[in-house]
């Protein structure tokens, strides 16, 4: 096996010292053919046992629990949830924001890191995009049912109807409809377009006729012509730009749902930014939770390297620090506003009744645990990172609960106060959506190219025509 960074003798004097050298995108310097074999191996091989062990419970939640929860909820009404006066937004909206949040890191990794030319993103980009697509699907489910009469959902779209009514376009809730649908469509387009060359890889490797037929249809007749790549790369960079806009738009609009209301605890100009950063932070947690086991089980440690996980952890740390700043700003502004209602709500987040412990979980996890990521030892320890990823997800779920329920349960009139507890149907719906997400994700890793095969090969020195390993004679590396 060659060493990880091969520098030919005549270039050694020009090369930077070891500690300044960039970590290679793919370790072990495998040849392109061997790399292709390795990356398409899982989608072609036999289904391993761990896949079934995860798939069966996920599929049970998705195909039994979720439909039962939905059918009962839609037929009986929103009353089966714990939502009631004064807490009209409960676990459904909490889960909605959480799922939108999980989606955002996927787009950030695949689009924004492409625009900033971070080659390491090629290895985890596809996995992150799939996370985006599936979690936006789950997010979209909640508002559609939360309206109560789900069969009137089409009222939200500007469709000419016999009542002569149109949506009210000034409402952020209306903007949400557009934002979430656009996010779903655009992230699916982006995901699919990125996959076309890799579907062609699988098509060319297919051995059975049905497999070849299906993959031929999916690959759209991709040949790998330089002219095709030329238009493809342009379309890709345009889509990346658009997806980056979406990262900053969709959660902002969700934030606007809250901050345009008058409620203390919601009525703050920081909300759009707050939701975007919270979303990205939560999504990085989810990326850690998904990738750490998969890189091991799929034997991709040389592709999704420790260095890549280190970078994801650093991004989680950065977004966690911004979150910590926003928390302190929220509390400071509540105090500085001198508004008794604001002060009351924020005081009760930590020292109130019923939900006070959630405030401490939120700060303990999102601000406290995140600081562990400062340490290189922790960032290199996959077990610790996995646990931190899980805790970040829990912390962000708690945060949304604190924002939504913690602001609603005590509004301006004490006569309006109440307590909200999720019912079993709230929990069943959330578990069902989690199951559906993981079921789709497991199907994705088994049947579709989980790693962007062509992008990864293009990011290796063997794929660089100006690098000695790519066949260049002399020249710069």
């Amino acid at each position, binding site marked *: 096996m060659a060493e990880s960074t091969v520098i030919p003798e005549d270039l050694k004097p020009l090369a930077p010292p070891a500690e300044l050298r960039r970590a290679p995108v793919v370790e072990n310097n495998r040849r392109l053919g061997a790399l292709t074999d390795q990356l398409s191996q899982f989608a072609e091989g036999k289904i391993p046992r761990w896949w079934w062990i995860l798939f069966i419970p996920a599929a049970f939640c998705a195909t039994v629990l979720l439909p039962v929860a939905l059918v009962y909820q839609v037929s009986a009404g929103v009353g089966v949830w714990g939502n009631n006066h004064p807490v009209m937004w409960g676990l459904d909206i909490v889960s909605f924001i959480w799922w939108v949040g999980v989606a955002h890191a996927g787009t950030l990794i695949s689009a924004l890191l492409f625009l900033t030319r971070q080659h390491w993103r090629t290895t985890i980009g596809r996995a992150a995009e799939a996370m985006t697509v599936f979690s936006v699907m789950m997010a979209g489910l909640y508002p559609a049912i939360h309206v109560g009469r789900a069969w009137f959902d089409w009222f939200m779209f500007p469709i000419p109807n016999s009542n002569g009514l149109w949506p009210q*376009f*000034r409402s952020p809730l209306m903007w949400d409809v557009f934002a979430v649908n*656009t996010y779903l469509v*655009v992230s699916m387009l982006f995901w699919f377009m990125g996959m076309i060359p890799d579907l062609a890889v699988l098509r060319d490797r297919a051995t059975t006729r049905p497999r070849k037929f299906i993959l031929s249809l999916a690959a*759209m007749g991709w040949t*790998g012509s330089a002219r095709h790549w*030329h238009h493809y*790369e342009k379309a890709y960079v345009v889509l990346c730009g658009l997806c980056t806009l979406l990262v900053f738009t969709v959660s902002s609009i969700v934030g606007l749902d809250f901050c345009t209301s008058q409620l203390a605890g919601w009525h703050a100009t920081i909300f759009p930014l707050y939701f975007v950063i919270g979303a990205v932070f939560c999504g990085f947690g989810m990326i850690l939770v998904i990738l750490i086991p998969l890189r091991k089980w799929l034997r991709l440690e040389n592709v999704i390297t420790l260095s890549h996980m280190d970078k994801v952890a650093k991004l989680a740390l950065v977004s966690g620090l911004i979150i910590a700043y926003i928390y302190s700003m929220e509390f400071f502004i509540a105090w500085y506003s001198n508004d008794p209602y604001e002060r009351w709500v924020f005081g009760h987040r930590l020292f109130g009744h019923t939900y006070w412990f959630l405030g401490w979980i939120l700060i303990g996890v999102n601000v406290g645990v995140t600081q562990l990521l400062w340490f290189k030892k922790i960032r290199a320890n996959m077990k610790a990172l996995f646990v931190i990823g899980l805790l970040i997800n829990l912390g962000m779920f708690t945060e949304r609960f604190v924002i939504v329920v913690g602001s609603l349960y005590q509004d301006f009139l004490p006569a309006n106060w109440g307590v909200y507890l999720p019912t079993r149907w709230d929990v069943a719906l959330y578990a069902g959506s989690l199951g559906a997400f993981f079921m789709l994700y497991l199907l994705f890793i088994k049947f579709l190219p989980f790693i962007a095969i062509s992008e990864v090969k293009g990011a290796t020195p063997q794929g660089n025509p100006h690098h000695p390993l790519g*066949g260049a004679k002399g020249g710069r590396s």
Partner: protein
Amino acid sequence: MSKKPYGILAEFETPAALLSAAEKVRDAGYSRWDVFTPFPIHGMDRVMGLKNSLVGWVSLMMGAGAFVSVVGLIWFANAFDYPLLVGGKPMFSVPMTFVPAYIMMIMGAAVGALIGMFAFNELPRFHHPLFAGRRFELVSRDRFVLLIGSTDPKFSPTATRQLLESLGGAHIETIED
């Protein structure tokens, strides 16, 4: 079932070998040739003389079209067809339309980028003469293939083949149309 040749394929081991072969094919005066690679090769656009792709313009047009249509739709829906008074504000103002129009602009531009890419690449196309190539399936793996098309004015079944051989191309194969 014509026996007309579609072109001649030659295979190269590394991207650098393909790039230098492509330069020589261009210098030899060929104009209808193409390369097939597992991933885009840096510098190939310049060698092939490919101009800036027009996909961006398609995307821009569709995005702008979506933006303007949504502004129009909102004016029609909330100010003209069923005037809706909300909070004493004007029936129609440009700022109120911005967010939905902007979001739909992203949708339109994204669809435009995808449609533009497919249209310029003439995809989907499920049959292609090159798929009959014996080793063409290796392109998506690790081979770098150069094709000189038979429609090229300089194309000659023997001279072109010799040129590709002299450039170091392996597994030279004539593809039938």
